[in-house]
């Protein structure tokens, strides 16, 4: 299984169309590095993206440099995946 240790999901609340456009640019800059769980659609909807640990600093710098406010929705994806696998194994037992 692919390991997602340290990968995070960031939730961004874009204020306007310009900020959404910056997020779309990010998708273009790192098409295989940033995985949009909820893509940039409109300012009223949050944008969620999974960022690999290796890209976290770059991506957070990009967001901060453009004034894009974000929160960490999932701190470490692998922790949740481990819990999920354990729950499945427990259910089987």
């Amino acid at each position, binding site marked *: *299984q692919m390991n997602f240790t340290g990968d995070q999901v960031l939730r961004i609340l874009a204020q306007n169309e310009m900020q959404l456009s910056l997020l779309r640019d990010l998708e273009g800059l790192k*098409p*295989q590095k940033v995985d949009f769980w*909820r893509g940039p659609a409109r300012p009223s909807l949050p944008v969620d993206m999974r960022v690999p640990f290796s890209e976290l600093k770059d991506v957070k710098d990009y967001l901060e440099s453009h004034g894009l406010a974000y929160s960490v929705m*999932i701190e470490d994806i692998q922790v949740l995946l481990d819990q999920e696998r354990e*729950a*499945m194994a427990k*259910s089987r037992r």
Partner: protein
Amino acid sequence: LERSTSSFSYSSYHTLEEIYSWIDSFVTEHADLVSKIQIGHSFENRPILVLKFSTGGSERQAIWIDTGIHSREWITHATGIWIAKQIVSDHGKDYILTSLLNTMDIFLEIVSNPDGFAFTHSMNRLWRKNKSNQPGIACIGVDLNRNWRSGFGGNGSKDNPCSETYHGPYPHSEPEVSAIANFITAHGNIKALISIHSYSQMLMYPYGHSLEPISNQEELYNLAKRAVQALYEVHGIKYLYGSISTTLYVASGITVDWAYDSGIKYSFSFELRDTGRYGFLLPATQIIPTAQETWMAIRTILKHTLRHPY
């Protein structure tokens, strides 16, 4: 493998093998109402299975429900399994469902993307697309919800095979899509189609590829509103509703646009629960509450379809 549906845990997630084994047991235990149909093979040659709920008769009108076209959205497969059980247990008790099954059939495809789903269990839990590949192209997979003929290749889909929203080389190029399209077209009497995704807490209708309202906009808007209210009354979860392009985003080549353009008026797409904390990794403890509320919304759509023949 779990060998009978009584020992199956509906409040846990399951592998493809477990689900297919459950399907076999489920069909055997409820042979008077449920049968299994294979509508095709996936790219990696896995069977694509559909449960048919029918009280008999031929050339009946029908409802189509699919879950799991995006393989990482595990809550949708789990919801589909629970709904199958609910249809069986409600038949003969719930007057809406009983009336519907007296005249119509229900087709339920629980794993629309079996290759992708198997891959989420074996290699990459967060895989979204199918597993098809093309010679000379390094990236694998097509977004099966961008591969449909309606609006194919337009805004909200990508021609880059490495993108998560890659639309594929041509409409219905993917066996998982063509299997459904061929089945529905050959059937010719599907009156409602419900395609289930996660996670944004929304109930939506066409179009995705265009901001233009459909001709049945008002009816579908009011139906979505009632369905969302029915859902809310179960556990107090609020859903947004409206057309896909105005509620979520512009997306081209999607299932419900194709369904609507193919004459299925009651075409809806669900985005199941978003707790704002887990995304696609919704804890298994939320499977049954999610399924319960989703079923009540679906039931509202079924009731409307039954009472508004076209």
